[in-house]
């Protein structure tokens, strides 16, 4: 479905441009990136500040001039850093697309990183870190990533303290050095979807980005995570009104591994992200009323990411329901790992995943995002359709084998943040008797 609508051009200078004609009320959505990100920077904070500083001025234009130019086009444009890319995304009316892409090229070629703007941005980031430090969702996510991934892994997040320390060290010099290291046209991927014919997109992108510098960017290597014994972390935030709970296991595999599709289906059956059909939502929320939401998925590794991801089971609880809720979530994990799922349940979830994929590709931004995410891994856009075929071929026995291999309770690390104490997160094995009782 995606492949039939997306046209692609690989330029001799290395850039890969994807374009989909899509009715979008006279606008285009776009997502682009070059290799870089936290891996190249050695710090997610440095990579993040670098990305944000790109809108603070170029050698030709002050921040104010940039802002006025963007507002004059009514455009949205944001830069961000992922584990291994510097990304930009936004939307603009087609009539201004040429001007906006030229501006993106200017920002990439000639960022100024002005000292004064950097000082202000660092103060802003300090405030954002203070807010994040008090946020149970953020702290639980950071905690779990640090239990599972070693230093330098793209999926390991910096603690708030580490981020503060890294922020202090950011200077105009470090930003310029990082930029010089990453700026290369050959890793550019740009996906554009909307009211612009693909040949026009190719002509525009070809003439705009061909003049970027060219070099080979080598990202430092990292070790994949190894499934291991469970660890636990609690971040008490006393005055908060709810607890966020994340349990997860390292996988050490990427989405091209034979176990990936069966495991993805297994986690879909357990905790279908964002919906009600997963076992977790239908029991822990709908039957037992213990949570507002509980899901399971594979973050950091979707069908468009070759970095090894992890299995995550997520829930939010009222403080007084934390122990009971956690036991109920773990009970469901234990049950599916021990018993697997029926062939019929697997079939229904297979069909759901494929249908959901198609339904969600229903606006220009979603099209651009999906095309970009597939392309950054060097994959053809047809990979999405192939992956859906892989999903449709999975059977119950494969799902059960994958769950047993990757989601055993003894491998499940846990992170909780909010009004919760260390002693509330006792060992999963110690709770085995309670879990047994809960299952019966």
């Amino acid at each position, binding site marked *: 479905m995606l492949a039939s609508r997306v046209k692609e051009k690989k330029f001799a200078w290395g850039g890969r441009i994807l374009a989909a004609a899509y009715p979008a*009320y006279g606008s285009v959505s776009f997502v682009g990136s070059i290799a870089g990100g936290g891996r190249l920077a050695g710090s997610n904070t440095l990579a993040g500040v670098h990305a944000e500083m790109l809108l603070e001025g170029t050698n030709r234009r002050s921040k104010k001039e940039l802002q006025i130019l*963007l507002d004059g086009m*009514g455009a949205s444009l944001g830069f961000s850093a992922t584990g291994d890319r510097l990304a930009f995304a936004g939307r603009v009316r087609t009539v201004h697309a040429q001007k906006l892409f030229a501006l993106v090229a200017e920002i990439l070629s000639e960022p100024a990183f002005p000292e004064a703007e950097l000082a202000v941005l660092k103060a802003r980031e300090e405030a954002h870190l203070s807010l994040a430090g*008090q946020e149970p969702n953020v702290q639980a996510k950071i905690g779990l990533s640090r239990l599972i991934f070693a230093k330098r892994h793209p999926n390991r997040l910096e603690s708030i303290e580490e981020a503060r320390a890294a922020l202090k060290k950011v200077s105009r010099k470090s930003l310029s050095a990082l930029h010089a290291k990453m700026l290369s046209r050959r890793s550019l991927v740009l996906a554009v979807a909307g009211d612009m014919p693909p040949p026009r997109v190719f002509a525009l992108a070809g003439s705009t980005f061909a003049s970027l510098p060219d070099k080979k960017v080598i990202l430092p290597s990292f070790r994949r995570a190894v499934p291991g014994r469970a660890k636990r972390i609690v971040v008490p935030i006393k005055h908060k009104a709810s607890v966020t709970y994340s349990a997860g296991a390292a996988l050490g595999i990427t989405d091209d591994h034979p176990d990936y599709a069966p495991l993805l289906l297994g986690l879909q059956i357990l905790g279908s992200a964002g919906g*009600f059909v997963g076992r977790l*939502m239908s029991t822990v929320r709908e039957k037992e*009323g213990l949570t507002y939401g509980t899901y399971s998925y594979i973050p950091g590794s979707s069908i468009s990411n070759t970095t090894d991801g992890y299995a995550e089971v997520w829930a*939010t609880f009222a*403080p007084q329901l934390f122990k009971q809720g956690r036991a109920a979530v773990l009970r469901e994990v234990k049950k599916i790992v021990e018993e697997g799922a029926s062939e019929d349940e697997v079939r229904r979830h297979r069909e759901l995943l494929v249908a959901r994929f198609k339904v969600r590709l229903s606006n*220009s931004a979603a099209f651009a995002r999906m095309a970009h995410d597939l392309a950054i891994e060097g994959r053809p856009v047809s990979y999405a359709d192939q992956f859906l075929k892989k999903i449709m071929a999975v059977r119950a026995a494969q799902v059960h084998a994958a769950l047993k291999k990757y989601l055993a309770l003894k491998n499940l690390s846990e992170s909780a943040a909010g009004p919760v104490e260390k002693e509330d997160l006792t060992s999963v094995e110690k709770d085995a008797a309670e879990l047994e009782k809960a299952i019966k």
Partner: protein
Amino acid sequence: MKKIRTAYGISEYRLENGLRFLFKRVTAAPVAAVCVTFHVGSRNEAPGHTGSTHILEHLLFKDTEHFNRHNGKAITDYLEWFGAYINATTWLDRTNYFELVPSDKIAEALELEADRMRNSLFSETDLQSEMTVVRNEYERSRNNPFELLDEEVMAKAYTTHPYRIPTIGTKEDIEHSTARKLHEFYDVFYWPNNATLTIIGDVPFVEAKKLVLKYFGPIPPSPHPIPAMSTVEPRQKVPRRISLRKPMGVSIVELAYKITEGRHKDYPALYAAAIVLAGGYSGRLERALVDTGLAASVSVAAPALFDPGVMSFTVHVAEGAAPAKVLARLRAEVARFAKEGPTQDELVRVQERVRSEASSRRDGALNEARALSESVAAGDWMLDYRVEETIERLRPGDVARVAKKYFIKTGETAGILNNTA
């Protein structure tokens, strides 16, 4: 089914039972969005019943006569199995239930929505299991410092009108909800003559019409008039102020001004003023507060509501900056704008920003249906288009006039959340 009009590519019809039906065919993707907007929100809640609309929204995902867990057609997952996205939201003026489905599943979506309009069962057991979920949602909202301060500011800005009560309700009222009380609320407001059905997507009109008549046509209109909410907020005579001290990790400042309802002739110019001050990239407050290191971020909200609302500026105070100083600066910038109005260049940028935002809101069938739902709730389904058209014709003097009229001390409520963590 009677055709009322076609405007902006959308056709409006009225069923005999009073249901308004809005239809637009969009063939960009093989999907269709269905949205049922009930003209009831927290604005319609009586004292002692706050949060009822929201709890009712939760209960409408529980069993009905034809969709229930016992016959394998639970509302929560019936459509999801087809790959659909399904959800609902409650706000001040409306409650909306919506789904994005593969277009060949439009019949299933309409059957479900028609059924839960009148056939929800309201068992006490369902309510009890859902109450923990609602409490958890309430508690999660307490974690958000911006939400906390905004609720306090609204509670201070309004003395009489129900906009002073947060949609989620008070903890006490939430705790005292009963299935019987909620069923009574449902029987007052959930009728076709108090709802608007929207279908946008890859469905021919002939088919959509047939299905709408089949599923919604037989539902009778309410046997009573839908009660009108007639409370009028008295004119504010003095500036109001509140101050909180909480360990939230951040300090926040909010400055709210009373404005008009969305349908008022001054609203488009007020919306333009909001963008000049804090919209896009080059807003005046961004310059005055963020670029000077006083704030980590600044935002503005000026929703088009059914009754006179507020325009509120919210500032995440930078580390080390004094909230009182930030408030003073914020107030001074707004006052300066009220005195001078926008420049011609600023207004041209606003017009471009509005065109761009409109295109974004309508990109995708579900986005478009949900945007339309907000206009429906504000009392005119064409409002979004009309505001956009009016802004195209504005001159700087028009914006200056409303700024002078509404950004006044006697319309102001200021709030400060001082972080103690």
